């Protein structure tokens, strides 16, 4: 389980050269804040997130959470106090829903009364009770996203990274899951970076600040009002325009 201090601060500069795009993005995030990474498909948003998570390794730059250096050198994944959720929730198919949610929590901690209550809260809040003991491989896509979300919260993370976690879900479920996430972000006080190419999803999830990427570079950052009022590029204007 991730412990939390009052001065959490993520600072990062991600430099990553790929065949099709060269990414160079700097960002900073305070404790309990949320940041939306917005842009068209292929702008480098997911690359930035994957590099912070450690799924990919940057070519240069740095990633730091408080005094914990993620990169360089590359900190092993299991020592990074963060959770990373993508549209593929990455459930372990050989385990039940309940086992998935408790996965990674040390047995001694999992046995504590407070932790058991917390897991029960997540089970009830995400309506996982009816399929709690079902194999994760047999639940529907929407249920899997809820389980993924609950598992992400189970360890009370300091930093949450979301890479289009609601892609392909119906609007009603997306609304529910976003409300849940915003509620828990406020309650638990974790910092959050979310990536999406749908402005309305991102604005709801990270209402205060956003960074816009194009071709791997930041073209604008600020509040959503700023972005809507004066989009810096024609592409951004087009992305923000209603259908």
């Amino acid at each position: 389980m991730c412990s939390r201090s009052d001065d959490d601060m993520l600072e990062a500069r991600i430099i990553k050269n790929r065949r099709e795009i060269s990414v160079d993005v700097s960002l900073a995030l305070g404790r309990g804040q949320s940041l939306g990474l917005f842009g068209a498909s292929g702008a480098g948003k997911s690359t930035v997130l994957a590099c912070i998570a450690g799924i990919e390794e940057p070519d240069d730059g740095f990633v730091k959470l408080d005094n914990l250096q993620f990169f360089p050198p590359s900190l092993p994944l299991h020592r990074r106090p963060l959770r990373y959720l993508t549209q593929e929730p990455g459930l372990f198919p050989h385990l039940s829903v309940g086992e998935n949610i408790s996965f990674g929590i040390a047995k001694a901690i999992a046995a504590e009364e407070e932790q058991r209550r917390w897991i029960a809260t997540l089970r009830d809040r995400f309506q996982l009770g009816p399929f709690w003991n079902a194999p994760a491989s047999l639940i529907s896509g929407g249920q899997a996203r809820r389980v993924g979300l609950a598992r992400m919260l189970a360890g009370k993370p300091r930093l949450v990274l979301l890479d289009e976690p609601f892609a392909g879900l119906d609007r009603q479920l997306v609304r529910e899951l976003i409300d849940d996430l915003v509620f828990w972000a406020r309650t638990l006080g974790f910092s959050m970076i979310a990536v999406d190419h749908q402005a309305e999803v991102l604005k709801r999830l990270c209402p205060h600040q956003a960074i816009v990427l194009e071709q791997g570079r930041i073209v604008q950052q600020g509040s959503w009002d700023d972005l809507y009022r004066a989009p810096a590029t024609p592409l951004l204007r087009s992305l923000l325009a209603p259908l």
Partner: protein
Amino acid sequence: MNLDRPWVARAGIALFAMALLYPFTALFARIGPWQWGESVRGPVLSSVRVSLLLTACAMVIIVAIGTPVAAYIAHCRTRERLLWQAVLLVPILLPPLALGILLTLAYGPYATVGSLLERFGVVMTNSATAFVSTQVYVGIGYYVLGAVAAFDAVPVMLQKQAALLGLTPANVFLRVTLPLSRLGLAVALSLAWVRAIGEFGAVMVTAYYPTGMPVQLWVNLTSFGLPAVMPLLVVFLAVALPLPWLVHVLAQRRRHA
């Protein structure tokens, strides 16, 4: 053949399957009464014991050495992986008789390693050690290559998710990679089992004694003729085939589920 008509294609494949299974009709061949007298029974039962016990030992060694080797190769980049896989192909592709001769010369009393081993009391010809090590040689390539394929089939992202959930690399392997690849590993092991327990050429050179089932079959065939072979043949098939066959069928079912 007109493949647009399913029954034509099905009849064709049925004919093919019948051709594959036809040799089993030999079990009912009219060769006279099967011999199961004392002169046949004793050595036959002894060879069954030798084969089962020593092949089981070989499998334990193959799993103990092969699993970490396969896990390492599965994480290698392409060039290094190709190198190790090419090395593993050598014992698989070597003609068994040639492998047996090479093993005897390399680990026998005339080679440095062999004489060194003998000094420590490890005899590498005509001994249980020779039998097991030959089986390990002939089977481990099959197991490792199969295990690499099984590990490759586990999504990398799941393993990374497990690590991000706080699991050390060893725990990721034990709690995610291994359970998700267990059927593939069982298939790999069953291939190694069939290859090792059925090995004749190499074992005949390195370990004529203690006599396992394949060598005993040969002895019975040359000494007593077909009627003395049949009982051991039935036992040999019963021991060697059903378990690997079942594992493969299960794996296929799981793949198509």
